[in-house]
C-alpha cells in the first residue's frame, strides 16, 4: 500500500453550471481528499469551500442576458505531497472588481450574504482568485494536511 503523502493524484470534473451540481462537486472533492488522508474536520471544511466556489459560479458566471453561452464549470483537484490543490474555473462573465468581491458581505445577488469568499479563505490555507471580464474566473485553493 502506498503512503498517501508520497502519492500524486488528480481528478477533474466538468459539470453544467446548475445548483444540483454543487453537491456533486463537493462530494467528489471530499471523497478525493479522504483518499489522500485528510481528516474528517478538514474534509468538512473542504466541502464548504468547494460548495462556496461552485455556488459562486452557478450564481454569477452566466447571468441571463449576459451575452455568454453557459459553458459549465470545471472542478479539479490535485494531491501533491501534503497539499490538496482545488481549482474551480468557469468561462463566464468574470468579476469586474476582484478586490471588491473579496470584501466580506459584498454581493450582487439579492438574498445572499456575500460570505462565500470569506468562508473559502477561512477554511482553506491559501486562496487565489483570478478573473477576466468576459473570459471567466478561476479560484485556486490549497489545503495542507496536518502531518503531526
Amino acid at each position, binding site marked *: 500500500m502506498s503512503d498517501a503523502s508520497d502519492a500524486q493524484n488528480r481528478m477533474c470534473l466538468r459539470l453544467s453550471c446548475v445548483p444540483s451540481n*454543487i453537491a456533486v462537486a*463537493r462530494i467528489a472533492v471530499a471523497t478525493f481528499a479522504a483518499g489522500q488522508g485528510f481528516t474528517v474536520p478538514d474534509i468538512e471544511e473542504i*466541502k*464548504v469551500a468547494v460548495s462556496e466556489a461552485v455556488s459562486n459560479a452557478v450564481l454569477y458566471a452566466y447571468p441571463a442576458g449576459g451575452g455568454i453561452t453557459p459553458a459549465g464549470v470545471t472542478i479539479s483537484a490535485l494531491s501533491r505531497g501534503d497539499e490538496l490543490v482545488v481549482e474551480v474555473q468557469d468561462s463566464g462573465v468574470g468579476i469586474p472588481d476582484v478586490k471588491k468581491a473579496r470584501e466580506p*458581505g459584498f454581493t450582487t445577488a439579492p*438574498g*445572499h*450574504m456575500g*460570505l462565500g469568499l470569506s468562508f473559502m479563505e*477561512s477554511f482553506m490555507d491559501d486562496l487565489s482568485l483570478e478573473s477576466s471580464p468576459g473570459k471567466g474566473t478561476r479560484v485556486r485553493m490549497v489545503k495542507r494536511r496536518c502531518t503531526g
Partner: protein
Amino acid sequence: MNLTFHRGPSCLVARMSGELDLSSATAFKERVDQELRSTGIPNLVLNLRALDFVDSTGLGAILGRMRQVTAGGGKMVLAAVPPKVLSMLEMAGLATLMPVARTEDDAFRLISGGGPAGGATPGSAGERGAIAGSEGGATE
C-alpha cells in the same frame, strides 16, 4: 434537504435534515414561510440536529426566516445546532443575532420568555472570530 413540521407550545417546530445549500435554499424558504402563514403561528423553533451540511447560502436562508418571523412579531430560536454549524454561525457573525438552544425544550422556554434554562448559548464569536458584522450583509 428534508423538512418536517410539528406543533410546539406557542410555536411551530421545523426539523431539518440533509443539506442546505443553493439547490435547497429556495424550497426551505418557501416551505417554512408557507407553514408559518397557513398555521398563523408567529414563533418558530428550527431544529438543526440532523442538518449534515450548510454553506453561506444556507445560512442566508436561515437568517431570512428569522427576519421573516421577527417582522411578524414572533421569535425564532435554533435548537440542537451541530457544532460545525454553530461554528459557521459564529464565523458569519450570526450567533449574535439568533438565540441558540441546546434542545427543543430549551427553545420552548426561550420562546415563552423563560430564559435559557442552561440550554442557550450566548452569541459570542468562536475562536475563528466573526467574518461579518452583526448586519451580516444579507439583503433578504
